């Protein structure tokens, strides 16, 4: 396919500029001190513009994606993988999310990270992340996608552990990487299976052969790839890293752990649509995992006190929603949700960052309250984000969430729908629990902190406002009318076989919409009652069902289980292998042979008596023995 040269340049620049930013900042950033952000931010801005340009291009060429094999990467045996890029409509959506949120986060960070000892390092890492993320979404083959995939994982590791002088941060970074590795394990095997089965890793090539793959193999491929997605998108049971990832600076949480990287799993599954769509079982697994994760995370979020943890679990829950959508066959709805989620969840995080900034680093909501007036910009933007998250008409979340639930219902997954509704209710509760605890009521902070509370600088609030606009409106813009919005048409070439649901305002669709809206509002009201009006109620409730409260607070004991089952047992087993097997069995055998030989030598020494007649006897005896043996051999 002949692709526009301008696109080639754009794609190359999109990928390379952040990399250049990373390298230059790493090398020279330290010398630039407080101005270290200039190069990376400028580059990211240009990149975002290019991303928008690319989106524009794909907007014009919806039916013929841009595919370009830049140069070969690995050529070995009969296999071949290349540095190849692909821009289709799905990529376009992702480009928008990544480009815009990425850029805004960079601006926001200028204010947020000011004065930090690792200022330049932070921007270097962020740029590296942008590079990897663009690589991930622009890749035209699984292997290159995996490169971006691991690259964002690395940046996540670096940025979570950015304050490596805190033990918790360095632990969390490592945990994120390792848990993701478990997913990558599956992803790698999935790639092997794809490669061995189809002989290529290029999306187009693989998908062309998707229908020829046997059902069993296909299921394995899907499940293995999905394992990767489970890790990256923090689905149960590999979700444990995401809450801990909040140890990183808040812009990181916004960019990586809400808006972009964690969506990579969803993106990848959507990208592999031709494979998944063929395997009903795989779809079912995706849906079940997503659904379970959604409600599971929501149950935990409801008791968390750390403002960022709440959002983190909310993110897990939202990601579960997306997988639920994909699994249920509501592909477009899933991506739709991803799209809007990026904006409002990113915003939510950035706002929380602003709150934390205002509170002088405090993250515990029990020590907040009453901030509504003190930091109004943050409050209003955060409110928008929260309402969008909860899914109240007409903000973004409403449209996407409703399409997902509608999709599940329409495909006959009533249980899933029900769980989704409950999740939506819980989401409303914990989102507004957070809002009420933070912004309403009286302030519970120390006097010292109180005096210190201030609105964030412009460089932080402007991005908030800029983000609030899409967070509020984008859902309606691209999603209207329901089930037939622009985004459906736009993504059609990607999800070529998806049938459009008919949406009837006065039919099932409308009813479902009403139910979900009602549930959301109910949730908000419950939060209002519990956390603003009758603040003693939650405690009593907790006292009534302590096991449930405890389980939720302790994150369903997942960390404890992980600590005991895989971590400690692996270490114990490794210890055994080392001190038991290596040292005693193998080396024991080796040294034992040596010692045995030495022992043998020592036993022989007494024969050497030093006495002449013994020696003479030895000679004679030896001679006789020889005669006997040789004679016996010849039977004489």
């Amino acid at each position: 396919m002949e692709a526009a040269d301008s696109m080639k340049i754009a794609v190359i620049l999109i990928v390379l500029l952040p990399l250049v930013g990373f390298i230059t900042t790493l090398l020279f950033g330290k010398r630039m001190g407080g101005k270290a952000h200039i190069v990376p931010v400028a580059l990211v801005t240009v990149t975002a513009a290019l991303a928008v340009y690319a989106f524009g291009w794909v907007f014009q060429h919806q039916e013929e994606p841009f595919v370009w094999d830049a140069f070969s990467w690995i050529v070995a045996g009969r296999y071949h993988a290349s540095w190849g890029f692909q821009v289709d409509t799905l990529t376009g959506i992702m480009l928008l999310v990544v480009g815009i949120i990425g850029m805004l986060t960079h601006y926001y960070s200028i204010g947020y990270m000011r004065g930090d000892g690792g200022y330049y390092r932070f921007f270097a890492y962020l740029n590296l992340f942008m590079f990897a993320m663009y690589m991930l979404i622009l890749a035209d083959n699984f292997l290159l996608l995996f490169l971006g995939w691991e690259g964002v994982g690395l940046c996540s590791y670096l940025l979570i552990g950015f304050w490596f002088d805190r033990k918790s941060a360095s632990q969390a970074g490592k945990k994120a990487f390792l848990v993701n590795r478990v997913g990558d394990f599956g992803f790698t095997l999935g790639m092997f299976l794809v490669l061995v089965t189809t002989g290529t890793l290029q999306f187009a090539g693989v998908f062309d052969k998707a229908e020829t793959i046997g059902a069993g193999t296909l299921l394995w491929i899907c499940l293995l790839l999905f394992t990767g997605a489970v890790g990256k998108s923090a689905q149960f049971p590999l979700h444990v890293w995401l809450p801990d990832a909040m140890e990183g600076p808040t812009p990181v949480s916004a960019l990586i752990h809400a808006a972009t990287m964690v969506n990579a799993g969803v993106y990848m599954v959507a990208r592999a649509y031709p494979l998944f769509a063929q395997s009903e079982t795989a779809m079912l697994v995706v849906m079940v995992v997503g659904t379970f994760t959604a409600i599971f995370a929501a149950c935990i979020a409801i008791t968390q006190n750390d403002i960022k943890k709440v959002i983190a679990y909310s993110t897990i829950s939202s990601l579960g929603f997306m997988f639920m959508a994909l699994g249920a066959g509501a592909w477009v709805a899933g991506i739709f949700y991803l799209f809007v989620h990026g904006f409002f969840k990113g915003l939510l995080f950035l706002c929380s960052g602003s709150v934390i900034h205002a509170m002088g680093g405090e993250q515990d909501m029990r020590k907040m309250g009453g901030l509504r007036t003190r930091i109004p910009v943050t409050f209003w933007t955060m409110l928008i984000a929260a309402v969008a998250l909860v899914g109240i008409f007409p903000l973004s979340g409403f449209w996407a969430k409703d399409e997902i639930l509608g999709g599940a219902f329409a495909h006959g997954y009533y249980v899933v729908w029900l769980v989704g509704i409950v999740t939506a209710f819980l989401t409303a509760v914990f989102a507004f629990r957070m809002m009420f605890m933070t912004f309403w009521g009286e302030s519970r902070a120390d006097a010292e902190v109180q005096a210190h509370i201030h609105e964030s600088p412009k460089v932080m609030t402007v991005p908030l406002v800029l983000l609030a606009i899409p967070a509020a409106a984008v859902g309606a813009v691209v999603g209207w009318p329901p089930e037939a919005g622009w985004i459906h048409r736009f993504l059609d070439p990607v999800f070529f076989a998806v049938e459009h649901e008919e949406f009837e305002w006065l039919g099932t669709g409308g009813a479902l919409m009403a139910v979900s809206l009602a549930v959301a509002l109910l949730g908000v009201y419950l939060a209002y009652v519990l956390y603003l009006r009758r603040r003693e109620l939650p405690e009593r409730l907790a006292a009534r069902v302590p096991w449930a409260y405890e389980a939720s607070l302790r994150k369903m004991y997942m960390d404890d289980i992980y600590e005991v089952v895989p971590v400690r047992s692996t270490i114990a087993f490794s210890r055994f292998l080392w001190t038991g097997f290596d040292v005693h069995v193998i080396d024991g055998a080796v040294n034992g042979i040596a010692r045995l030989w030495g022992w043998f030598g020592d036993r022989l020494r007494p024969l050497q008596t030093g006495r002449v007649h013994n020696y003479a006897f030895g000679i004679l005896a030896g001679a006789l023995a020889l005669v006997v043996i040789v004679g016996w051999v010849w039977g004489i």
Partner: protein
Amino acid sequence: MSPLDWWLLLAMLLFCIGAFGVLARRNTIVVIMSLELMLNAVNIALVAIAQFRAGSQGAGVLFSLFVITLAAAEVTVGLGIVIANYRAKRTVENDHFDEMKG
């Protein structure tokens, strides 16, 4: 048995007596005597073979002459060593020479 066998048997007996002497006696002088006995036993064998073995061309006799000469030399050397050792250690018991072993 042929005459040669008898002679060989005699030689063998003498040889064994000599060997027994070497093994059993501790006095080095006696040991040397036993060694001589062994050599002479072979001499008997050699002469006997030369006499009785067909086609043996009498080389055994020649051989035994050499052996006699060598035996004399051997005794000389042996006694010399014994005397030297006696000077150093005042003993001719070979059991006393077991400083080095193992």
